[in-house]
């Protein structure tokens, strides 16, 4: 019998379609893995299941009964528990307080701490969690925090357990511990949904696997038929390379690097977010970096750009003129309340009399050269489409004529036309002899544009490709490369 059935679930956020007609079933007392790239729609789907979002259309059945959840409380009442990717824990509270919050047991007005402690310690022992209930969350390690989240689920008698990227932050030993706990859950008759992108773990634990890509179900398989290579390809999809961008061979002395990182280590919150990283950027070269989000990309960018100063290792810069198109344009890339012109002058030299005429002039230049679609010259950035916003940011950075250009996820949330335009501009800069660093999770983009290409995993560039990129038109070579990349991104080493 099916513990959960998804039927034609669709969910949109504005222009973005997070889930489209998602349908599949989760068997009772099984471990069901839900896999896919970042942005594939896995988390959204689970948040719908847990009552955080409501689907635009489609239904969910729990134990063959159609259910509609208005809030997590409803899901909890149906014995569904979710372990979020970003822990929902209160730093200043003890483990005990965090677990019982919202479902406290009391004697008259006082919380029954004695009973609570006893009950929790029972679970603690049974599942070998090894937690000290008196400790505050701020005092315990990440894997212990996760165990607290697990304890929360046990305390509420969850029968259906959703785990969102549970082993993302665990060491190999902790991962083994975690899967032992999962086994125990299964023995107890619970149903488990595991969101992950770690294929080797999937191989070990899954009973059934569903693959999501761009919000849709693209593949399903049972334990017996599991093939990591197939899964890997299904996750990244078929990559269509663009042939219309010409990369001239740039005759530039490439021995000298413009920026060189040697053995860079950056420590934050107790662990090395960049770990002995080596990277060289050269003139007239596009260096692409790909990896699962959270493996150090943002910190790498911040470091090269100059915002991150407390690191060990060597950073050699032949120039300080670095442009950056950041990954999150709303948060980092622009002042949305300002007009285009006003955003442009922020990087201009200091002026004492900024007239409307001057701003209009700047804006016109950008609008014309970068094909930005605007209702009027003095429109504020907030009202532009994502693609046009990105073009403005692009323009601003390119017009500075700096030696080094960093593009971080430059076409995220951008429509096809703007994307093509931005790509051509990136190539243009490379041809003009600039050093370009391109960070992206879009493999199409990276493989089409990059001269050199590195995979980042847990703060290190684990492998660099350059010659392989030359044969990319060949279908077989391309697939081989993609498989390699897929594995590297999740930590499996390749030859």
């Amino acid at each position, binding site marked *: 019998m099916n513990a959960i059935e998804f039927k034609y679930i669709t969910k949109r956020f504005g222009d973005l379609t997070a889930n489209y007609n998602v349908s599949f079933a989760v068997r009772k007392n099984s471990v069901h893995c839900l896999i896919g790239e970042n942005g594939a729609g896995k988390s959204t789907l689970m948040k719908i299941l847990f009552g955080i979002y409501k689907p635009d259309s489609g239904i969910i059945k729990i134990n063959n009964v159609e259910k509609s959840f208005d809030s997590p409380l409803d899901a909890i009442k149906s014995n569904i528990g979710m372990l979020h990717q970003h822990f929902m824990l209160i730093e200043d509270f003890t483990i005990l307080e965090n677990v019982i919050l919202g479902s406290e047991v009391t004697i008259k007005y006082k919380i029954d701490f004695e009973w609570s402690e006893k009950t929790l310690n029972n679970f603690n022992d049974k599942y070998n969690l090894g937690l000290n209930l008196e400790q505050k969350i701020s005092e315990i390690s990440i894997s212990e925090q996760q165990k607290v989240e697990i304890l929360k689920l046990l305390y509420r008698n969850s029968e259906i357990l959703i785990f969102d990227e549970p082993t993302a932050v665990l060491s190999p030993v902790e991962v083994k511990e975690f899967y032992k706990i999962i086994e125990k859950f299964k023995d107890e008759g619970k149903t488990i949904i595991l969101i992950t992108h770690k294929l080797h773990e999937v191989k070990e634990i899954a009973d059934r696997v569903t693959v999501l890509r761009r919000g849709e179900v693209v593949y399903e398989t049972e334990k017996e038929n599991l093939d990591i290579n197939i899964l890997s390809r299904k996750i990244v999809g078929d990559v269509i390379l663009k042939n219309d961008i010409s990369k001239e061979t740039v005759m530039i002395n490439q021995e000298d690097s413009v920026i060189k990182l040697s053995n860079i280590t950056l420590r934050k919150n107790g662990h090395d977010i960049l770990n002995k990283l080596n990277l060289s950027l050269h003139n007239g070269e596009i260096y692409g970096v790909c990896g699962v989000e959270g493996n150090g990309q943002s910190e790498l960018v911040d470091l090269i750009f100059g915002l991150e100063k407390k690191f060990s290792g060597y950073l050699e810069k032949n120039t300080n003129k670095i442009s950056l198109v950041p990954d999150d344009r709303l948060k980092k890339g622009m*002042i949305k309340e300002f007009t285009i012109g006003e955003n442009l002058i922020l990087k201009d030299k200091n002026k004492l009399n900024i007239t409307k005429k001057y701003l209009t002039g700047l804006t016109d230049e950008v609008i014309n050269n970068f094909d930005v679609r605007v209702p009027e010259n003095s429109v504020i950035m907030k009202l532009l489409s994502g693609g046009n916003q990105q073009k403005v940011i692009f323009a601003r950075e390119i017009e500075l004529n700096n030696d080094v250009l960093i593009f971080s996820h430059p076409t995220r949330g951008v429509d096809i036309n703007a994307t093509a335009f931005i790509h051509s501009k990136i190539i243009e800069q490379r041809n003009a002899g600039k050093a370009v660093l391109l960070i992206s999770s879009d493999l199409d983009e990276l493989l089409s544009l990059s001269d050199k290409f590195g995979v980042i995993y847990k703060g290190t560039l684990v492998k660099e490709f350059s010659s392989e990129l030359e044969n990319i038109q060949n279908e077989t070579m391309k697939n081989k490369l993609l498989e390699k990349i897929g594995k590297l991104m999740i930590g499996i080493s390749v030859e």
Partner: protein
Amino acid sequence: MEFLLNKKLKANIVSISISVVLTFLITIILLLILGKNPVVVLGTMFGEVFGSGYGLGQTLFKATPLIICGCGLAICFHASIFNIGAEGQLNAGSFVISLVAFYFSGLPFILLFPLCLLSGFIVSGVFGLIPAIIKIKKGVSEVISTIMLNFIILALVNYLLIDFFAVKSTVRTEKISESFMIPKFSEYFQMFQGSSLNLTFVFALLLALFTYYLIYKTSFGYKLRAVGFNETASKYMGIKNNKIILLAFFIGSGITSFVGINFIMGYKGYYELGFSNNLGFTAIAVALLAKNNPIGVIFSALLFGILDYGGLAVNNIVPKEIMFVIQGIVILSILSVDKLVEKYYG
């Protein structure tokens, strides 16, 4: 004046208009509840304010320090810096101005006046730097630090005044020489006879223009506002946030010291304990109502000046203290109307 007539400006004008109207309505209702005839009260008020040269003069006189202080605060508020410490800052600067004006009386006015401005500006500015540095180095919110500093500065000024500089048995400094007093309007225009309105008013207007220019026409102003809107993006666009915060605090606080010019050099000739009468807080309301636009501050200050003097004028009918109530209503009304207009305009 060049306005970029975008949605934001339209929304602002709507907010301000609705707030003013709302305040009006609430005031009328309040008057009715108190058993007073709103027509008589408001009529008398406006009659007194606009009906005589003296009334007009007094209104403008009371608006002057609000314009000055409001402009200083506007600079801070644009950078999202909640400077609640204007009361302390302006008193520190004004106190020093009164001392400089008295002890450097050997200098000609043409040198003394700038010297007073400079010394007041620096003293107030430095007191403004304290919360700025605490914020930057320790991440402490300027709200609490400026509130605390108000008390500290006022106690300090009180101590220095009473124990060292006060004229015996008074709570004021020595009176400065007549030749350093700023000319009153009544010296040029008969109609303002008897009013303390002086050329500081013109100075205030010029200051407002200067501040407007600084905020909306210079690179500094744009960076100031960028930091106020989005600190993170500013950082990524290469703006030195810390420098901007320090400057905003320094300049904004420094400007508030000029309030002293109006009272000391334009009216009484000395610094007196309590002269500011919570001006530093009223100025917050003035700046808020004007949406931190210095030109708007002029009109907002005028409105508060009308309430201030008008209150005195109708004191027989309804106690002048009602103006404090109305001030409070103005703030709450602009805050709530603003939020609702924001939701409506999206």
